[in-house]
């Protein structure tokens, strides 16, 4: 198993750099994973991450892109409730890239 180390703390990851133990996630490791994805986290990035984690807690999976855009739009204003907005924040796709930073498992299948 691969690991990453941030500020003296070790986190177990899978081959693709997704955290193995969801409970280990914290902001330090999120910031670190973001840098490996060439993303510098802003308040807007965190809004998405926080929603993903809340949704995951309830449903045990990341939300569909459509559910995410709608929820972000409701919470933060219609201008942010678009997939363009989410792709601008997470260019490799909000599903996978944001999940990785949020410490959630990678969505699999034909997505």
């Amino acid at each position: 198993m691969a690991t990453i180390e941030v500020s003296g703390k070790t986190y177990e990851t899978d081959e693709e750099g997704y955290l193995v133990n969801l409970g280990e996630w914290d902001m330090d490791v999120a910031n670190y994973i973001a840098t490996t994805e060439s993303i510098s986290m802003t308040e807007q990035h965190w809004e998405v991450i926080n929603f993903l984690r809340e949704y995951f807690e309830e449903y045990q999976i990341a939300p569909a892109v459509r559910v995410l855009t709608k929820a972000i739009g409701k919470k933060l204003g219609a201008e942010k409730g678009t997939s363009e907005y989410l792709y601008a924040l997470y260019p490799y796709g909000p599903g996978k890239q944001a999940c990785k930073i949020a410490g959630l498992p990678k969505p699999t299948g034909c997505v």
Partner: protein
Amino acid sequence: MADVVAPPYRVIPIIPALIPGSMEGLKPFVANDKINTAIGFPGELVEDWHDKAIAKMGELLSKYRSLKVYMDACVHCGACSDKCHYFIGTQDPKNMPVARQDLMRSVYRRYFTLPGKLFPKLVGARDLTKEVLDEWYSYFHQCSECRRCSVFCPYGIDTAEVTMAAREILDSIGYGQKYSNEIIGKVHRIGNNLGLPGPALRDTLEGLEEDVKDATGVDVRFPMDVKGAEVLLITPSADFFAEPHIDSLIGYAKVFHATGTSWTLSSMASEAGNFGMFIGNYDQLRQIALRIREVALELGVKRIVVGECGHAWRVAYSFWNTLTGVGDGADETDRFAQMLQKQLDHRYKQPMHICEFTWDAIERGALQFDKSKNDKHIITFHDSCNVARGSRMGDFAGGQFEIPRNIIKTVANNFYEMAPETTCEQTFCCGGGGGLLTDDLIDLRVKGALPRMEVLQQVVDEHGVNFMATICAICKAQFTKVLPIYGFDRRLVGGVHQLVSNAIILGDK
């Protein structure tokens, strides 16, 4: 990601210059112990892998007569050599279908033919060494089982079956691929490839009901687990999750609404995809398919309709009958298959593709469209490999090509074909099929998309095409990812029922 670049278009699309070894050592992530054992495979490469692999190969050769014929029949004529999208994109000679097959054929000769046993060097026979095994792992994960090469083979050798056999042997010795095997585990555990649990599915469907109501003012339902519904819709779980897939799901629901059909999705069989086929494992193929039978019996449905998913339709059309009893030909001793045969309404095709369902409704005059709603789209159609070469639609030859196109032409005004040597039965794979739609193979996926991107570029230049419709979840996900790398908008790809959804006129029912 940043270093993945699209190869340049070929000036004249002929056989590319060879770059030997260009994809050597490419190795998608190997499934770990936990993933493998969950689906009954050895956790890791077993110690006596050599003997086990040869024994497995012998078993497959005796079980599948076709495999033995494919091993023996090839005369190396070369007709297939430049027909593979991965060969065209990677220029690696081992990705010529004949050369990829020969990775297995050479081992077959060594262990299963007399000349190969006696004079291996003279007949190109090779021992199965660890190097050869690694080569198998690498190159049999550079084939998407799309069967384009088979169309051109004068002996009709089905290359996909060779790839499936190789993967089956690899799995039997604990050397399987993470992407496919992890997904198969999720289907057994949760009900779909995505790992979407029932409550999340229900939440998503309720959200869609709200969205459609907001957009149209009509109460279009997305029912789940409804006993006594007439139609059970089996669709790829990506339709519940990803863009643009979800827009086609909305299209199916609108068609069911407009035709007054009672229908349901199932939380337990919330997956049309069947990766058991990709890894060539019959038991997995069957177990995954049986979830659908169980649900169909439990809900008492009369019809089973399959959503936009390429390989699922191949499995449904070609294999569900003997696997589950959906369609004709269930084993007489298979009690549940017989029960299902009696339960289903045979006035209708079983199973039925959603495109057949919609086209039938169009022909009956049951659906009305405002074509101008799709006027912003200038459309082309990408045939998906498994639909094109592994199935059919309707009751006439070539229905799988005509019916989706007929639907598009009914719901939209602007339609242009891509170059004929790249459509219908000669279609190119999207580059992500057959269990290769994984991030660790993104470089291969981009290269494999080259021939499709070249002809797409032609219709973009000539006709201003801005929408490539397709009926496969893998194609949709693959193109969404690779289109931007070729300089196109990711939203250029979408579903046929996405177009249906745009144009359909919903009456009050």
